[in-house]
């Protein structure tokens, strides 16, 4: 099976570059799984975890904060607004951010601009925590 050439880039750096067998991405209309020979597709992505699956290797987990994905038969390019590999995430900071966001949401009213911001922050930090924990669990297994 011919693998997929996968690139994950943000405006600041290239986060991942390499060959993978499968890409699981958080599309705006639900989770998307991309295998080789997929029909060409351009889609918007939302907050969530991006999983890159490789045969014989550990999965790569990346927390992304929205963006776009371009899919060709043999290549997947992801332009992410933000992207962090699981091992780069500071879990304590993410926890702190989540608590802060939750606090703000508890205080402000729904129509407040801060509420929306806090909600976005909450989703972002929750994703990051989830991704970071994945790595820890995966790393624990022999």
């Amino acid at each position, binding site marked *: 099976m011919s693998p997929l050439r996968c*690139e994950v*880039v943000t*405006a600041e750096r290239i986060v991942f570059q390499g060959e993978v067998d499968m890409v699981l991405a958080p599309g705006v209309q639900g989770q*998307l799984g991309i295998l080789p020979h997929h*029909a060409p*597709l351009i889609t918007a992505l939302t907050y969530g975890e991006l999983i890159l699956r490789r045969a014989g290797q550990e999965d790569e987990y990346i927390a992304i904060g929205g963006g776009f994905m*371009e899919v060709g038969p043999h290549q997947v390019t992801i*332009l992410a607004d933000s992207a962090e590999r699981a091992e780069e995430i500071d879990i304590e900071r993410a926890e702190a951010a989540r608590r802060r966001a939750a606090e703000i949401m508890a205080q402000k009213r729904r129509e407040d601009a801060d509420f929306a911001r806090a909600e976005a922050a909450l989703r972002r930090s929750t994703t990051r925590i989830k991704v970071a924990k994945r790595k820890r669990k995966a790393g624990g297994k022999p």
Partner: protein
Amino acid sequence: MSSTREIRRRIRSVKNIAQVTRAMQMVAASKMRRAQEQVLATRPYAEKAWELLNHLASQRAADEAMHPLLEMRTEIRTVAMVLITSDRGLCGSYNHNIIHHAWRFIRELPYPVHLITVGKRGREAMWRLRQTIVAEFSNLPPQPRLLDVTPIAQVVIEGFIAGQYDVVYLAHTDFINTLIQRPAIWQLLPIRPLFLGATQVSEQHQPRTEMAVTEYLYEPDPRTILDTVLPRFTELQVYQAILEALASEHSARMVAMRNATENANELLADLTLTYNRARQEAITKEMLDIVGGSEALARLRGERSAHRAM
């Protein structure tokens, strides 16, 4: 001697200056390298985003209205300009060049210009020129991240969509190499995709790119994706412009500081020469005094002995 002491004091202070400027030169050099790396790091994303943007923009159905960020307005009433300068001085003619370039450009425009300044120097200069400043950003972190500059892009996008501005220009300094930085002004909004220009004409003759041949599926639909790509792209352009300007600033400062160090060293050589000459002069004078004194004494003694002999 007061003059040698004075010279010595000057030598000491010039030495200090040379040390400080050399240190600043080193700091600027390393900051420049980092800024350059940051600029390079944005390229892959920028290229992909540009490809995507051109592709999406060309997908527009004939009856569909053009995206507001792409649409050229027929009547232009007000223009906005993002002017990128530095917060601090001591960087040669860096700020002067870009500000003058922008000022010449503004004076030639027949429309009122609203300024969004990035960096204190540009704000102060434009304020002195009695220009309208609608927003001001300064004290950006030394290594800005995309998030640090998105508010700047937001201001112009919102202003443009609301119809406050009909064209938005961006003035910044292009980093060419360590010695050359060129002030540049270009149109930020409306975005002008390539397909509107030369590519469409040459399409039949040139082999099409992979992007142009393949029929894509869109999720949710091209318009929605375009809605998110365009603001992102504008943010990215502002980000890149700021990074380029930062690299330029640091290299301008590096060159300015190198010149300052060289000048200080030259001055130091001059002063040391003058000091040595003054010192030598003092010694000679002292010698002359001593010799003169002893000679006078000897003469005196000679006269006395001559008296006695008489």
